[in-house]
């Protein structure tokens, strides 16, 4: 790794000031993406600003909805008793990321800010209609996570902005969720296709009040399958309708072919996993 300077501010204002005062600054959270980039010289920071010294930036707060500090580790999300109880799909998605060693370092904010279309926290949080709170040179700023990603490894964040908090709305507690990550290996790999589904349905009649479907690794950024959602919202979930929606989701996916999988295979996977995910939620004994 090339040489660089290291600063560990003790509060957010100092972090923003350090971003403005230094040449080629990069924010450091868990470093599990950043250090890889630095080792390969893909990124060459002159200064790292370590956010881990900011008090309270790794908090998990529950007040009907959740407020998650951006520096909360993926492991803390995985094992939080409150998250496991109220929104277990988030904990299940967290458990699929990397290894225990990586999850102990990797943060949810870093996962979003790196901007990978395959990021595990991105797909599940997108399905949860999250809001992001940013600290900037001109005060705080809020936006929906659906506005955040702009393309592969890019987000709307400017150089002098820090993601501070991820807010999960309280309604999400009434949804059942599922996270399906498909890849050649069960462990330690990003998915070929990731699907997150949140469903609020009447299990006995199969009536869908509302559904959110997010797709990862099948477009330049994590996306919502809006057409599929529109087909299912306020409708009875018959096998035919689920199939139709699964096909719509597959049409909405615009994957690339790479060494992991071909575009066609990814589109087929989207169709199968969306249908499977909805079925699994409807048939789950233990609501999640």
């Amino acid at each position, binding site marked *: 790794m090339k040489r660089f300077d*290291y600063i560990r501010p003790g509060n957010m204002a100092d972090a923003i000031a350090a971003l403005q005062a230094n040449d080629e600054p990069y924010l450091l959270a868990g470093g599990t993406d950043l250090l890889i980039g630095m080792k390969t010289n893909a990124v060459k920071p002159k200064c790292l600003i370590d956010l881990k010294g900011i008090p309270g930036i790794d908090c998990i707060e529950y007040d009907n909805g959740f407020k998650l500090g951006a520096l909360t580790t993926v492991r803390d999300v995985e094992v939080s008793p409150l998250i496991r109880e109220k929104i277990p799909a988030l904990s299940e998605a967290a458990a699929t990321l*990397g290894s*225990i060693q990586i999850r102990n370092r990797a943060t949810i904010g870093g996962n979003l800010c790196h901007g990978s279309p395959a990021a595990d926290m991105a797909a599940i949080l997108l399905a949860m209609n999250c809001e992001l709170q940013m600290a900037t040179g001109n005060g705080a700023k809020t936006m929906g996570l659906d506005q955040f990603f702009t393309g592969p490894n890019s987000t709307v964040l400017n150089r002098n902005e820090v993601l501070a908090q991820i807010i999960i709305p309280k309604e999400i507690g009434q949804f059942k969720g599922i996270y399906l990550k498909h890849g050649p290996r069960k462990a330690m790999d990003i998915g070929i296709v990731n699907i997150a589904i949140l469903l609020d349905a009447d299990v006995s009649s199969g009536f869908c009040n509302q559904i959110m479907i997010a797709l990862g690794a099948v477009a330049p950024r994590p996306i919502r399958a809006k057409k599929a959602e529109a087909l299912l919202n306020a409708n009875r979930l018959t096998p035919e309708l689920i199939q139709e929606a699964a096909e719509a989701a597959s049409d909405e996916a615009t994957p690339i072919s790479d060494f992991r999988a071909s575009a066609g295979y990814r589109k087929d996977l989207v169709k199968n996993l969306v249908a499977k995910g909805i079925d699994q939620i409807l048939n789950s004994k233990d609501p999640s």
Partner: protein
Amino acid sequence: MESKHRIQITVNEEEHDLLVHPNRTLLDLLRYDLGLTGTKEGCDEGDCGACTVIVNGKVMTSCLVLAVEVDGAAITTIEGLHQGDELHPIQQAFVDSGAVQCGFCTPGMILTTKALLDEISDPSEDEIKHYLEGNLCRCTGYTKILDAVNNAVQLLK
């Protein structure tokens, strides 16, 4: 700019006061500055788990940690497990189970097992596999490693 930083860390209960460049990884600090070569370098990018150490009770791949980040931390490496002339029960279990062939993955495997058993004293097979996912072994085929973890559970009871 780019000057050295002073850090104070405790490694295997011994305190160290060190000057480090920010680009020094914890792995290189342990191996080259402190001579603790039990921690291995495999992939250098977080994939293999050979460089696993325990930092403030949590396992991390030390190749992805900067030394400056762990100022004030308590670190355990494989050299810190034995008690006098006695192997740690988890080390003994790896020996007894034949879970070591070339030995390159073994320090990381043992430290991850320690973190697992500190957290869950009697883990299920699924819990063991989930916890050890980030430790690769090219030799044993893992069966003996699972045996070793189960043996360690018995030895620690």
